[in-house]
C-alpha cells in the first residue's frame, strides 16, 4: 500500500537519479559551449559567453573528422559481422543438439572476463607482421571477438524463449520452409537480434585500449583514442572545450539510441545475465 507520502519520496528519489545520471553529460555540453579562453579564468558551470566555435574547430580538425569516420565505419562493420556470427551460434545452441554447447558458452564467458591489455602487446606484434596494424580490419577483428560473448548470451537467452514449434505449424498450414522461416521466425527473432546489435555497437563505440594500441594514424584511429591524444587547434589554445565539443558529437548517437530503444536495451542486458 502506497501512502501519498511514500509516493512523494519515490518521486524525489527518481528526481535525484535523473540529476546524478544527466549532470556529467550536461557539464560536458556546457564546456563545449564555452570559449577556450574561459578555461582557467571563469570557473563556473554555465558558459559566460555561449559560442559554437568549438564545434567549428572540431569539424575543421582532420584528426577528429577522420576519427569520426573510422569510428562509425569500424563499429558498424564489427557490429554487423559480430551479430551475424552470434546469431548463428545462438541458433545452434537454442535449437540443435551437438557436443560442445556448454563449452562454447563457458569459453565465451571466459573471453568476457579476459584482461584485454594482456593481449594487446602480442596482438601489436602479430598485426605488424601480417599487415593489419593501423588498418580497419585490425580493429574490427578484436572488436568482434570481444563483443561476441555478450551478443551470444543475449541471443541464446532470447532464442530459448521463441516458440519454434510455430514454424512447423505454419508448414502444416501450407507454408514453404522459407515462408515459415521468414514470416514466423524472423519477426520473433528480430527484436533479440536488434538488441544484441545495440549492445555490440555500444561496446565497439566505447573501446579505447585497442584504439590506442593498434593504430598510429588517421587511417584507423577511432574517436576515444583521438580524443585522448588531441592537443588543441593550436599550441596556444587549451584543448578542453574542443575535446568536449567532440565528446558531445560522439555522445549524440548514443543518447538517441538510448531514448529510442530503452526497453530493448534493458531486456538485453538483463536477459543474458539473470533470468527474470
Amino acid at each position: 500500500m502506497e501512502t501519498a507520502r511514500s509516493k512523494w519520496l519515490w518521486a524525489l528519489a527518481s528526481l535525484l537519479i535523473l540529476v546524478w545520471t544527466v549532470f556529467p553529460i550536461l557539464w560536458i555540453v556546457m564546456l563545449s559551449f564555452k570559449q577556450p579562453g574561459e578555461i582557467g579564468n571563469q570557473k563556473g558551470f554555465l558558459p559566460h559567453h555561449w559560442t559554437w566555435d568549438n564545434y567549428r574547430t572540431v569539424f575543421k580538425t582532420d584528426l577528429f573528422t577522420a576519427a569520426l569516420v573510422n569510428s562509425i565505419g569500424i563499429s558498424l562493420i564489427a557490429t554487423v559481422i559480430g551479430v551475424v556470427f552470434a546469431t548463428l551460434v545462438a541458433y545452434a545452441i537454442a535449437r540443435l543438439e551437438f557436443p560442445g554447447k556448454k563449452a562454447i558458452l563457458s569459453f565465451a564467458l571466459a573471453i568476457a572476463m579476459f584482461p584485454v591489455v594482456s593481449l594487446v602487446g602480442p596482438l601489436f606484434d602479430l598485426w605488424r607482421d601480417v599487415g593489419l596494424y593501423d588498418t580497419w580490419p585490425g580493429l574490427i577483428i578484436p572488436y568482434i571477438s570481444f563483443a561476441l560473448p555478450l551478443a551470444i548470451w543475449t541471443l541464446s537467452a532470447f532464442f530459448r524463449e521463441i516458440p519454434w514449434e510455430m514454424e512447423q505449424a505454419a508448414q502444416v498450414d501450407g507454408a514453404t520452409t522459407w515462408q515459415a522461416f521468414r514470416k514466423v521466425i524472423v519477426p520473433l527473432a528480430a527484436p533479440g537480434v536488434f538488441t544484441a546489435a545495440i549492445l555490440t555497437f555500444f561496446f565497439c563505440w566505447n573501446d579505447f585500449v585497442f584504439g590506442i594500441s593498434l593504430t598510429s594514424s588517421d587511417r584507423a584511429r577511432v574517436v576515444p583514442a583521438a580524443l585522448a591524444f588531441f592537443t588543441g587547434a593550436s599550441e596556444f589554445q587549451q584543448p578542453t572545450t574542443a575535446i568536449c565539443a567532440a565528446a558531445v558529437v560522439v555522445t549524440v548517437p548514443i543518447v538517441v539510441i538510448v531514448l529510442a530503444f530503452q526497453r530493448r536495451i534493458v531486456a538485453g542486458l538483463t536477459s543474458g545475465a539473470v533470468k527474470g
Partner: protein
Amino acid sequence: MTAVHTAPAAGTPAAPAAEISDRGRAERRLGLLLSAPAVIVMLVVTAYPLVNALYLSLFSYRITAPDDRRFVGLANYGTALSDPLFWQDVLTTFVITFVTVAVELVIGFALAMVMHRAVFARRTVRTAILLPYGIVTVISAFAWKYAFDLQSGFVNSWFGLGDYAWFSGRWSSMTVIVLSEIWKTTPFVSLLLLAGLAQVPGDLGEAATVDGATAWQRLRRVTIPNMKAAILVAVLFRTLDAWRIFDNVFVMTSGQQKTETLSFLTYRQTITRTAIGLGDAVGVLLFLSVVLIAVVFIKGFRVDLAQARGERGGGEK
C-alpha cells in the same frame, strides 16, 4: 524449448537408432558449423596472443633491439614480483576495485529499488539510467576530470575548496577516478539487481509485514537472501571489470601520483616502453590474477554461472 529437449541424444539404444543417429550426426555437424565462425574469431584474438605472451615473457626482449633477444626463463616474473612498483600498482588496483564495487552495490541497489517501486516517471528513470551505460568511458573520464580540474572545474568553487589540487595527491586522484568509474558502471549493476528484485516473491514480503517486520528486516531477511544469485553475478562481473580498469586512469592521471593500475603497467611496458618480455610477464600475471578472482568467486561463493547464461529453467521454484 521443446526442440532442444526432444532432440535425440547420440547413441540412444532404441530400435530406430541408426536412423536417429544419422539425423543426430547431421545436426551435430550443423551445430558445429554454425558455431565455427564465432569460435574461430574468439580463438584467433585470444588464444594465439596469450600463448605468444606466455612464450615471450620468458625472454629478455625489446622491440628496439630485436637481436639482443635471449631466453631468461622466469627472470621477468622475478623482476616484476620483486619490484615495489608492481605491488604499489596491485594496491592501487585493489583499492579502486574494492571501493568501486562496494559503492556500486549500494547505489545500484538503491537505483534498482527506485526503478522497481517508483510509480512516477518510471520510464524516464530507466532511460536516464541507461545514459551513463552508453557514454564512452573516455568521455566520462574527461567530464569528471574537467569538473575537478583547477583550470576548468566548478567543483572547488561550488564546495568552497579554494585551490585544492585534486590531481596532485594519490588518494584524491583516485577519488575522482573512482567517481567516474562508479558513475559509468552503476547502471549495469542496478539493471542486474532490478532483474533480481523481480524474482523476489512479493507475497513473502507481505507475509513478513503482517508478522510485524520492519522495512529493514524485510530487506535483510527476505529481499536480499532471495536475490543472492543476482547480487553475486553483479559483483563477479563488476569486480573483474574494475580490476582491469584502464581508460579512466589513462585520461585522468596517466598513472601519475601512484595511481597506476595493473592494466596500465602492462600497457606502459609493452606499448610505450616496448619492453615486450617484461611487459608480457606483467600481462600474464594480470591474466592469472583475473583467473584467480574468477575461480574464488565461482568455487568459493558458488556463483551460479548457469544463471549468468540464462540457462536456468523457469519451473524450478
